[in-house]
C-alpha cells in the first residue's frame, strides 16, 4: 500500500509531540523511523494506525484520506513494543484472532495459522500460552498475529527493544527476510541507528517531533543534511571550529566541524596514503572495540577519534603519529555540508 502523510501535527496537552510531519512511503518498502526516545516516532506510527488522531494534517492510503477511518477498517498489522499478546489465549488463538474477527470459515483459519506458524518457525508451540514463551518467540507470535489477516501495511513499534542483544541481531535478519518474502509495506520505529541502517530500505530521521531527513541509509550516512543527523547517525566528534586542520583551511572559520572516525587515517609517513595531506598528532587514549581500535588523538588542542584496523601496527597513548583527515562535515546553521581534504587532490597530476 502507498502511504502518504501531509503536515501532521499532534499535541498532548502543552507537549507538541509531532510538528508538521510529511512523508510518502512507496509500496513494498521497509521504512525505519529513527530518532531519540521521546522524539515523536511512536506517535507518528500510532497516527498511521488510527490509535491517535492528528490535530491537523492528513493521512492517505493509496490516495484515499483515512483520517476518519476507524483503526478496525484500516487493514493494518501492528506489532507493539511489548507485543501485547492476548495473555489468556494460546499461540494458535492469538494468531487466529484477526481471522476469527473477519468471520473466515474454520478451515481457512486453520490453513492460514498453520502457514504463519511455519513461516515464523513456531511449529510445536501452538498450544502454549504467551507467558510460556521466550522474548524472541513472543515477538514471532506478535509478528504472525499481525500478518494473519492479510494487512496492507505493517507497523512495528520498537520491535527489538525488549529482546537481549544476541537474539536481537538474529531477529533483525529474520525480520528483514520475512518482510521481503511477504512483500508488505512496513514501517518500524527504532532509536537504534545500527538497527535502522541494517534493516531499513529507507530511513526517516525524526527529532523533537520534526523530520530531519528522509533517504536510504547510505544517503543519510554519507550525506547528512542537518547537524542533528550528522551527529546522531554514525560515530563522530564535533569540534568548535576547523582552525589548524591540515587540508581544510578553505573551510569557514567560525562554524562547527564534525569528524567521523572512519574518515581519519593514522600512521607514519610510510604508512599513510598521502603523507603530504597529513599532520602530526599525539595519541591520548586507545579503546578496543572488538573489530577495530578507536583511537583518541590530540590535534593542535582538538580531540578527534580515528578508527584503526586490528591488523595495523599497535599504537600506544603518548605516541606521536601522522593524522590524515580525508573528509569532514561543516555544520552551518541548519545545514550540514561535506568537505573533502583539499591537499588530497594531487598538486601535480601525472598527465601534465
Amino acid at each position: 500500500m502507498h502511504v502518504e502523510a501531509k503536515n501532521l501535527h499532534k499535541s498532548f496537552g502543552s507537549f507538541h509531540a509531532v510538528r508538521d510531519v510529511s512523508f510518502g512511503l512507496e509500496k513494498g518498502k521497509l521504512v525505519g523511523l529513527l530518532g531519540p526516545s521521546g522524539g515523536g516516532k511512536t506517535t507518528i506510527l500510532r497516527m498511521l494506525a488510527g490509535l491517535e488522531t492528528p490535530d491537523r494534517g492528513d493521512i492517505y492510503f493509496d490516495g484515499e484520506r483515512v483520517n476518519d477511518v476507524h483503526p478496525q477498517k484500516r487493514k493494518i498489522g501492528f506489532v507493539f513494543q511489548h507485543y501485547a499478546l492476548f495473555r489468556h489465549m494460546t499461540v494458535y488463538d492469538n494468531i487466529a484472532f484477526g481471522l476469527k474477527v473477519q468471520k473466515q470459515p474454520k478451515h481457512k483459519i486453520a490453513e492460514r495459522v498453520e502457514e504463519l506458524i511455519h513461516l515464523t518457525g513456531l511449529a510445536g508451540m501452538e498450544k502454549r500460552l504467551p507467558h510460556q514463551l521466550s522474548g524472541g518467540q513472543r515477538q514471532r507470535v506478535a509478528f504472525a498475529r499481525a500478518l494473519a489477516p492479510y494487512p496492507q501495511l505493517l507497523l512495528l513499534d520498537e520491535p527489538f527493544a525488549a529482546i537481549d542483544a544476541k537474539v536481537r541481531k538474529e531477529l533483525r535478519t529474520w525480520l528483514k527476510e520475512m518482510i521481503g518474502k511477504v512483500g508488505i509495506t512496513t514501517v518500524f520505529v527504532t532509536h537504534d541507528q545500527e538497527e535502522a541502517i541494517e534493516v531499513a530500505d529507507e530511513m526517516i530521521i525524526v527529532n523533537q517531533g520534526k523530520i530531519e531527513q528522509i533517504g536510504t541509509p547510505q544517503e543519510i550516512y554519507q550525506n547528512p543534511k542537518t547537524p542533528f543527523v550528522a551527529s546522531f547517525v554514525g560515530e563522530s566528534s564535533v569540534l568548535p571550529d576547523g582552525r589548524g586542520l591540515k587540508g581544510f583551511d578553505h573551510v569557514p572559520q567560525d562554524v562547527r566541524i564534525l569528524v567521523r572516525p572512519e574518515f581519519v587515517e593514522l600512521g607514519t609517513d610510510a604508512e599513510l596514503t598521502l603523507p603530504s595531506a597529513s599532520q602530526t598528532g599525539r595519541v591520548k587514549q586507545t579503546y578496543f572495540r572488538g573489530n577495530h581500535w578507536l583511537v583518541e588523538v590530540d590535534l593542535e588542542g582538538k580531540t578527534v577519534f580515528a578508527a584503526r584496523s586490528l591488523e595495523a601496527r599497535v599504537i600506544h597513548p603518548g605516541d606521536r603519529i601522522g593524522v590524515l583527515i580525508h573528509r569532514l562535515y561543516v555544520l552551518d546553521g541548519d545545514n550540514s555540508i561535506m568537505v573533502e581534504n583539499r591537499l588530497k587532490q594531487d598538486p601535480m597530476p601525472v598527465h601534465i
Partner: protein
Amino acid sequence: MAGGMPAAAVQAQAGVPYRGVLQEKKWVRRTLIGVALLFLALVLVIPLIFVFVYAFNKGIEVYFASILEHDALKAIRLTLLVALIAIPCNTVFGIAAAWAISKFRFRGKQLLITAIDLPFAVSPVIAGLIFVLLFGVNGWFGPFLAEHDIKIIFAFPGIVLATMFVTFPFVARELIPLMQTQGSQEEEAAVIMGASGWRVFWSVTLPNIKWALLYGIILCNARAMGEFGAVSVVSGHIRGQTNTMPLHIEVLYNEYQYTAAFAVSTLLVMLALLTLAVKQWMEFRMKRYGQGEGEH
C-alpha cells in the same frame, strides 16, 4: 555472601550456625510466631468455633428448626433478594468505573478514584441516615414519595439502596489496580485487527480480569449479606418483612434465643469461609496465568 559458596559449606567452615540477614535469634522467632498464633486463636478461631458450638448445643433438630422457622426463612429470602439486586448493579458500576479510570484520560479522574472509597470511610450508620434524610417522611423527597404512595424507607427499596451504598467500592477496588497494570495495549491490538468494542470487551478485557472480578463480586456479596449498620437504620425492623439475616440475628439475641441466633449466624460464618476459600483459589489461578506480573 561468601562468594557464592553454598550456605552449608560456610556453616561447616565457620563452625557457627548459618543465619540469613533477616533471620533473628531462635527465641525471638518463636516468641513472635507464638504471639501471632495466640492472638489469631483468641480473636478469630475461638469465637468462630464458639458460634458453631452454641448453634448445635441443643441438638441438630433445634438447629434446623431455628433456621427453617418462618421469620428466619423470610430474613434469608430478603437477604438473598437484596444481594441479587445490589451485586449486579455494583458489578456493572465497578467494571465501568475501572474501565474509565484505567483506559481513558479525563478530568476529575482522581476525584472519582477517591469518591469510590467514600463508603469505606463513612460509618454505615451515617450511610443509613443519609437515605432517611433523603427519602424519609420528613426528608427531601418525602412529600413527593408520600404523594405517589412510594415507600423507600422502612421498606425493601431502602434496604437495597443502603446495601448498594455500603458495597459500592468492592468490585471497582479489585479491578482498578489490575487493569492499570495491564494497560490497554491488548485492547488496541484487538481493535487494529478489526474487533468491535463489544468483542474486545468479551474476548480480551473480560478474560484478563475475570479472577479479580469474581473475587470482587464475592467480597461484595459477603458484605451485602452481612451488612448491619446501614440496613438497620433504614429497615424499620419489621419481623418477617424488613429484617435481613443480621437484623434477624440481633432480634433473636435480644429475645434471649441464643441457640437460634447462633444457628442463623452459622450461615453467615460459612459464607465468610467460602469467601476465603474462593480468594485462595483465585490467587492460585492468577499466579498460574501470570496475571498482573511479567508481560507488562
